């Protein structure tokens, strides 16, 4: 699904990402961990197209997206969530979920004035958004403004918004940051459900390793811009080098 | 071209007339007029009137072997008092002009007055008539076009002669409008008239509906104590707006209307319903008397020859003002104080395109004739129906 090869990106003299290579398979949930400043955020930005690498390549679903723009990447089905939820805060929960839907007839100025032309599609999209919100337990809040939600609900809505574009893979940046432990686990349970039911792949940057390790298929450990280790959660926990730099043992 | 080089070239270009002057003795005659704003087209025509006078004078000076030549330097007043002060200052500081023809309206004249008085610059205004500009001893001369103290009397005489007991006034809130309305109230009372009411409006209003509604209410209350008329002191565009609203008012169509000179315009009658309304209202206006001296025809002819189109209204006054200014400079030298001293004498002995330029103690035109106008039988233009002699306060109506 996602192949990353020899990715390098420098800022001035600092090599934030230094020769990183790994794969995310179809329907896999991959955790990306590492201490602060290890290059996780830069890596996400490179994949999502907000930054472009100095060298190396990124392929998604067989297509080279190394130098694609964020919206092109998003259209290909690789959506990104943010650490600080990126929402249309002035708009309702439902509007936020409806926005990313593709090929909406009502967005064309020729069709927009004729309600009959897009009513069917709008109802279909609304029904889908409804299912999605139901799944994320946001359905009762559909007419609230996004800015009125709690922190955890905003995170869920951010995921929901990313999902409504029907992506095949989601990049998530610390989905549980600033969320109570109980809700954090719930968020990951939602992720697991989505992975199972909708065959979605995930690449998740996360600090809460205790929760993360329960839900991922593979873990990549970054250290000073390089991949320190990669493998199944159980192997990583046992890896000596990881324990040294990460757990400080 | 880079910016600095552009500035250098512009500087050189602007200096070139100084070097080109050669053996001639150039005297700059300043011209300040509104070139932009609602009165912009007036200003452009007035400047042509001045330029024609200067060209004719230079030709005569050359033929007579004189070394003196007049050149003009003009600036835009933007039609505002501030802009007028700036324009006068610009002309004086950049060209050293001591005598300026202009500005146009009384508010522009008053805006430039302080600078002119303090710097010994003489302003020769060809069309300002607001009573507020009638100040003795200042550096402003208002030639050819009589001040509204005379026309106010004309309105009062018409009102009394027609038997109006009361008058509801709608006037422009500027020195011209307020001056004329103030004087009218005084003269109307002095001539035995009854009550008056006043509504003032800001020039160039987006909408006059409030004012017209109030005018209607004033007419309603005045009518209780006798026959009432409306006196409208407005610019043409404002008058059109006012009349459009008056058309649908239940009361304003039932009384007579009197209008100022700006309303003596056939454009006002283009709209058939407005024309019918005004005919029904026995509409009468007072305008400058259209006498012409033999000079007027020559002026119009030369103007058309020079510029390819006939002169606009009042352009002849600018022509006359420029001649008075130049004659004064030739008589006393290009010096503000000297011109100020001799100008009344020169003007009093100058007969221009319309009348003799005799001035009063305020430095304002003292000979005042007005025509009284009404709408013609076809309802598409105005025709003169009488004459008012301001100096003698006598009104003669035809028929």
């Amino acid at each position: 699904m996602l192949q990353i090869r020899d990715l390098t990106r420098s800022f001035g003299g600092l090599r934030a990402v230094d020769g990183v290579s790994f794969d995310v398979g179809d329907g896999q949930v991959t955790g990306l961990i590492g201490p602060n400043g290890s290059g996780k955020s830069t890596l996400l930005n490179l994949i999502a197209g907000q930054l472009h690498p100095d060298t190396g390549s990124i392929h998604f679903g067989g297509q080279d997206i190394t130098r694609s723009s964020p919206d092109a990447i998003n259209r290909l089905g690789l959506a990104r969530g943010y650490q600080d939820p990126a929402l249309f805060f002035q708009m309702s929960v439902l509007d936020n979920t409806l926005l990313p839907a593709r090929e909406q007839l009502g967005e064309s100025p020729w069709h927009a004035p004729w309600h009959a032309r897009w009513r069917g599609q709008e109802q279909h999209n609304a029904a889908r958004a409804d299912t999605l919100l139901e799944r994320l337990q946001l359905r009762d809040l559909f007419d609230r403004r996004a800015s009125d939600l709690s922190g955890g609900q905003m995170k869920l809505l951010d995921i929901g918004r990313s999902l409504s574009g029907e992506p095949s893979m989601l990049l998530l940046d610390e989905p549980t940051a600033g969320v109570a432990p109980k809700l954090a686990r719930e968020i990951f349970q939602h992720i697991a459900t989505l992975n199972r039911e909708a065959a979605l792949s995930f690449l998740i940057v996360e600090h809460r390793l205790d929760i993360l390790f329960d839900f991922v298929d593979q873990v990549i450990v970054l250290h000073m811009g390089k991949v320190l280790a990669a493998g199944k959660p159980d192997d990583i926990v046992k890896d000596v080098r990881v324990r040294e730099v990460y757990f400080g043992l | 071209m880079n910016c600095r080089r552009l500035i250098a070239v512009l500087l050189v270009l602007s200096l070139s007339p100084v070097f080109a002057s050669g053996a001639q003795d150039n005297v700059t005659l300043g011209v300040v007029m509104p070139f932009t704003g609602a009165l912009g087209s007036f200003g452009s025509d007035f400047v042509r009137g001045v330029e024609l006078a200067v060209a004719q004078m230079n030709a005569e000076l050359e033929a007579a072997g004189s070394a003196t030549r007049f050149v003009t330097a003009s600036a835009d007043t933007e039609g505002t008092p501030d802009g007028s002060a700036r324009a006068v200052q610009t002309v004086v500081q950049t060209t050293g002009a001591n005598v300026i023809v202009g500005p146009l309206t009384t508010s522009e004249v008053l805006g430039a007055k302080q600078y002119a008085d303090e710097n010994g610059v003489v302003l020769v205004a060809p069309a300002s008539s607001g009573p507020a500009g009638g100040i003795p001893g200042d550096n402003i001369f208002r030639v050819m076009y009589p001040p509204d103290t005379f026309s106010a009397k004309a309105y009062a005489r018409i009102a009394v002669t027609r038997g109006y007991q009361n008058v509801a006034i709608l006037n422009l809130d500027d020195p011209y409008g307020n001056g004329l309305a103030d004087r009218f109230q005084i003269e109307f009372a002095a001539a035995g008239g009854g009550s008056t009411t006043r509504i003032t409006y800001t020039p160039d209003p987006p909408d006059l509906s409030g004012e017209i509604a109030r005018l209607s209410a004033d007419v309603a209350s005045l009518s209780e104590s006798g026959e009432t008329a409306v006196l409208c002191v407005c610019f043409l565009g404002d008058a059109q707006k006012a009349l459009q609203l008056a058309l649908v008012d239940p009361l304003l169509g039932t009384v007579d209307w009197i209008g100022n000179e700006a309303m003596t315009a056939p454009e006002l009658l283009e709209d058939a319903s407005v024309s019918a309304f005004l005919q029904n209202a026995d509409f009468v206006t007072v305008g400058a008397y259209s006498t012409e001296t033999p000079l007027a025809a020559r002026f119009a002819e030369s103007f058309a020859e020079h510029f390819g189109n006939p002169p606009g209204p009042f352009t002849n006054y600018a022509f006359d003002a420029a001649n008075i200014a130049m004659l004064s400079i030739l008589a006393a030298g290009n010096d503000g104080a000297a011109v100020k001293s001799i100008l009344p004498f020169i003007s009093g002995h100058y007969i221009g395109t319309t009348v003799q330029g005799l001035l009063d103690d305020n430095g304002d035109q003292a000979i005042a004739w007005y025509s009284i106008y009404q709408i013609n039988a076809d309802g598409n233009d105005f025709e003169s129906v009488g004459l008012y002699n301001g100096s003698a306060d006598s009104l003669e109506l035809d028929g």
Partner: protein
Amino acid sequence: MPPALLITSLVHSIQVGSLYALMALGITLTMRVIRLPNFAHAEFVTTGAFTALVVSLFLSRSPVVILGLATLSGALVALSSHLLVFRPMSRRKLSTYSMLLVSFAVGLILRYVLFVLSDYYQLFDKRIQIPLQILVRESYLVLTNITFTIVPVSIACVIALALLLGRTALGREMRALASNPELAHILGMRVERIRSLTWLLTGATAGLAGALWGLYTFVNPLLGWLAILPVFAAAILGGLSSFAGTILGAYLVAFCENTLMQALNHYTGLTFSFKAAIPFVIIILVLLLRPQGLTGFVRRSGDLER
């Protein structure tokens, strides 16, 4: 206050308020979606008025044709200003203040082009050639065909705009662009197209408002500029963001300018020259006491709120 004054001034409040609402909505739309306090809006309005005048003089006297072509001209002028000036300028990442000045400059240029043209073709202070007819005359209440054109057309247009913005996917994307342009871009919305459409819509409403305003009074190059102050007052009352607030603000400003002014004149003798100051007073009071405008009093999900 005499009933004649009260009734006439109320009729004018409604009439002028509808026009203000139509103009202010355009300003609110550009303010939110494009993030530009657009002073050139005044000249989009004037352009519409002049188009209506020229059409009525030389082409057709059908109100539908006149209003239609005026709407089109406003839309085209707005779109061209966007493509020729505002878009290249905003690519230089100018601050809002610089963009505001740019909009002043665009307005100034348009205004003086109209001045030159109307001077050359003698179009100063002409009326759009739709003859005035009195349709209702009940003692003090006088309603003309102009009232019956201005008010329904403005209100219909305002409702249509509100529906477009609140109910359609296009409106949703406009609101999304207003709310978070970066995210809208990443989500792959056709941001440039939405911007252009917003300009078209703003221009169209401005052009229509200009034609209607021209029907109400006379057409001259200052028409839009003289009306822009009360219109901005209305938009500021709406917090420069809320649709419902802006509409309410428009009628409130018109009410102050007409009925309140009439009452002040009647009871205190304040002259009508102070009418021009009313929008200033409203703007200052709102900015001092309630900078968010009327939002909070009126809040709907379809609004472009903060």
